[in-house]
């Protein structure tokens, strides 16, 4: 008997009798005969837990994990340290086995952590209001574009910098195509947004999207872009990495109207690309244009502090086709992981992580350039990622590293033909001097 289906055959007979039918098949009498399956589905037979574990063990052997290999990949997903607190709290099934908090009296745990999540992300980004999460950084960026068009109703153009993560741009293109939204691009020059292309921002532009640090790890000249957006009353949409915000200026202070980003770097396992969690926030003025759930503080009948989902007149279950967005389920449990991560790291931890990323990335950059195998690709300040141009074939480099237990840098030539043999290294606080020295030593020997 299947352990998850606890009705016994005897109980089934009793129940059928009370219902007033003879068999289970009678309960499916409304399904037309010709579309009823006549035999079992052609999938596996039921497996025991032991057999499942064996299957996963077999499959797992064909994966190489970043505990066994040192990882220098980034590009939107990062190998930061995850404190033990995160898994233990997110592993509490009072949290993970609950539904969306539609009954607030028995969902105060979920609602309060959402409130705390919104608060901490608002503090980091300098925005007035955050929502309860989006699917990921890329979809949050696309939703921000749609939000800009809701605010700037008479405009139909979005401008995005080519220094934004190319996968994010792909998602944005998909969303824009099907809404007939005009999408234009700011050019890339020397690894950052080309100041000369800022003149493309015009009175038709609803929103301008930049990423900081950008896809190449470089810290953008946000102030000038922000001024250019303001000049034509376009909204500035900033996609940021929250792990940098203990050190870098809050986007809200730089003139951002909408802030989005990927929360993976705050305590979320890499897990082959998901689940991650997108965040999204804005100013009080534009609060009612936000998509997704928002949690607010209130009081109960006895005057006790409590939390509820609020401003729901923006959402699909109330407004249907007039809703701000179709989003319903989000990534709540992963917002909890962000919350526990930020509570654990606190102010000093966030600064420490940021500072170590900058120091270690700078160290690796310097050491790599000293080998004569690499030259500078760009010459701009970066945070935890940087690009170098290799004099040796990129594939050879990654092969040599892999043989030595290292998952090497991102080969940008595989993403963009113009960037053949450009390698992008991601260096988090997890990397040690010894690891970086070993990396450099191996690379010295690659011909």
């Amino acid at each position, binding site marked *: 008997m299947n352990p998850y289906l606890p009705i016994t055959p005897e109980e089934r007979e009793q129940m059928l009798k009370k219902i007033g039918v003879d068999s289970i098949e009678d309960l499916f009498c409304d399904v037309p005969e010709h579309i009823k399956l006549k035999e079992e589905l052609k999938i596996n037979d039921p497996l025991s837990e032991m057999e*499942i574990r064996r299957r996963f063990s077999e499959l797992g052997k064909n994966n190489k994990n970043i505990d066994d290999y040192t990882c220098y990949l980034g590009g939107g997903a990062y190998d930061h340290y995850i404190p033990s607190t995160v898994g233990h709290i997110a592993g509490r099934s009072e949290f993970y086995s609950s539904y969306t908090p539609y009954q607030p009296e028995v969902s105060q745990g979920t609602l309060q952590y959402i409130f705390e999540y919104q608060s901490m992300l608002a503090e980091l980004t300098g925005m007035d209001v955050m929502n309860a999460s989006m699917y990921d950084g890329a979809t949050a960026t696309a939703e921000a574009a749609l939000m800009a068009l809701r605010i700037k109703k008479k405009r139909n153009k979005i401008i995005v910098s080519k220094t934004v993560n190319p996968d994010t741009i792909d998602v944005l293109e998909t969303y824009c195509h099907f809404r007939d939204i005009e999408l234009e691009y700011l050019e890339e020059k020397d690894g950052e947004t080309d100041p000369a292309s800022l003149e493309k921002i015009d009175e038709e532009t609803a929103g301008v999207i930049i990423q900081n640090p950008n896809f190449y790890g470089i810290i953008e000249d946000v102030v000038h872009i922000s001024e250019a957006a303001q000049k034509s009353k376009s909204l500035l949409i900033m996609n940021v990495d929250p792990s940098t915000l203990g050190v870098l200026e809050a986007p809200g202070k730089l003139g951002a109207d909408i802030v989005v980003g990927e929360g993976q770097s705050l305590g979320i396992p890499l897990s082959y690309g998901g689940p991650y969690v997108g965040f999204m926030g804005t100013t009080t003025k534009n609060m009612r244009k936000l998509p997704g759930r928002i949690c607010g503080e209130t009081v109960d009948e006895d005057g006790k502090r409590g939390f509820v989902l609020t401003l729901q007149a923006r959402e699909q279950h109330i407004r249907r086709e007039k809703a701000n967005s179709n989003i319903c389920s989000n990534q709540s449990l992963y917002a909890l992981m962000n919350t526990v991560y930020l509570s654990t790291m606190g102010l000093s931890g966030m600064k420490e992580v940021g500072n170590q990323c900058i120091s270690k990335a700078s160290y690796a950059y310097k050491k790599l350039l000293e080998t004569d195998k690499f030259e500078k690709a760009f010459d701009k300040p970066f945070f935890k990622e940087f690009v170098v141009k290799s004099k040796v074939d990129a594939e050879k480099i990654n092969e040599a590293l892999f043989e030595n237990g290292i998952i090497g840098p991102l080969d940008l030539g595989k993403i963009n033909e113009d960037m053949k043999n450009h390698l992008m290294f991601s260096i988090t606080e997890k990397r040690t001097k010894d690891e970086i020295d070993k990396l450099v030593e191996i690379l010295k020997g690659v011909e």
Partner: protein
Amino acid sequence: MRDYNKLIIELSKEGRKAYSIPKNDVETVDPEKYIPENVLRKEDPKLPEVYEVDVIRHYTNLSNKNYGVDTGFYPLGSCTMKYNPKINEDMAKLPNFANIHPRQPEDTVQGSLELMYELQEKLCEITGTDGFTLQPAAGAHGELTGLMIIKKYHEERNDTKRTKIIVPDSAHGTNPASATAVGYDIIEIKSRKDGSIDLDELKGALTDEVAGLMLTNPSTLGLFERNICEISKLVHEAGGLVYYDGANLNAIMGKSRPGDMGFDIVHLNLHKTFSTPHGGGGPGAGPVGVRHDLVKYLPVPVVGKKDDKYYLDYDKPSSIGRLMGFYGNFGVLLKAYTYILKMGASGLREASEAAVLNANYLQSQLKKEYKLPIEQVCKHEFVLSGMKDSDVHTLDIAKRMLDYGVHPPTVYFPLIIDEALMVEPTDTETLETLDNFIEIMNKIKKEAIENPKILEEAPTTTPVRRLDEVQAARKPKVKWD
């Protein structure tokens, strides 16, 4: 303990630390000297400074104020809150799956890709479709994907006047919202009293401007759409496509397949039917399956297989494009895969049979004291319309249930039923749990007759009582000061 009422920031004292990371072992670069002054942070964010024990006790105390499937019965209609097997969680934590970077070379992620490929194949078989994308992050994201595929299909045929999507008035709110999100206008058609599609209404709405129809089957009233084959035939004859909202697949696994009913596009909610936890609002996963001639439109990348090697296939010129930063909620996909392995073909069929049996059992017993607007065999859920012999509101009934320690059903949905209470017991409950629920519902009925005030004042035993939602919306306080 449930009186605990602090915010984490209220525990904060300067200098306290809950983390430890090794000292920086390379030359320190001073950000103030390295990063341009105008992008350097000037004001500290207000983040908690607490000890590890504070973090753990704080969030443990919060968890105690939550109700999950692991706490008790959760008959929340349309949400399929079935038990989430623990093996799912264990498999997702294995380092060979949890600690894989999404940009690793394909050779180093063959295990993940094989799992995804197999899951695609299994979902095709379960739904009777020919190709699947695992990318969408949730049901609504799946709807968005499906509607983009509909739009692309008509675009490629240069059939540009099809600007409308038909949605019945009994549909989930996400259906019309998703159609708007891809630029469609909505034609809402009235359902018949039993929640089924009115064929005359449908025929009247079908023109050469219609791109497709979105339908949930069983419907949101928990009833199987008997005319489904005729409905899909009508839409196809009018040149449209038929979209299956998979929220209610838990009623028909191994019994009947959307593909065989004439649906062209299907989304599934893995966090409903396939037992992955809902996480207090997500993450879910909303894979989308399509019939053979629509496979070319699926978002990139899909997982392919060539000579025993698995790969991410980006070479799809007709694809609608990319829909997520990476490949979807892989950790959720893995849990659903585990569940399918565990259940097998017979187990999935038995799960649907159990879900339908349990729902019909509750319906047969609850209709004695509660109004059942449509008297017929239901599928995995059914909708009551308030109480017999009393005009107490559904909201008060729901709040009173909280005092009895069970999660209430979905209330006030679908919109076409007055004072709706939508009950979905799922397949994973014992007869004792079902009987206990019936007993509670009957007790509440008795209370409503004898002293309705008890219901109006409920709940009284929960961590907080009814909350002032008006104040929350009027003066939004959405972060700490």
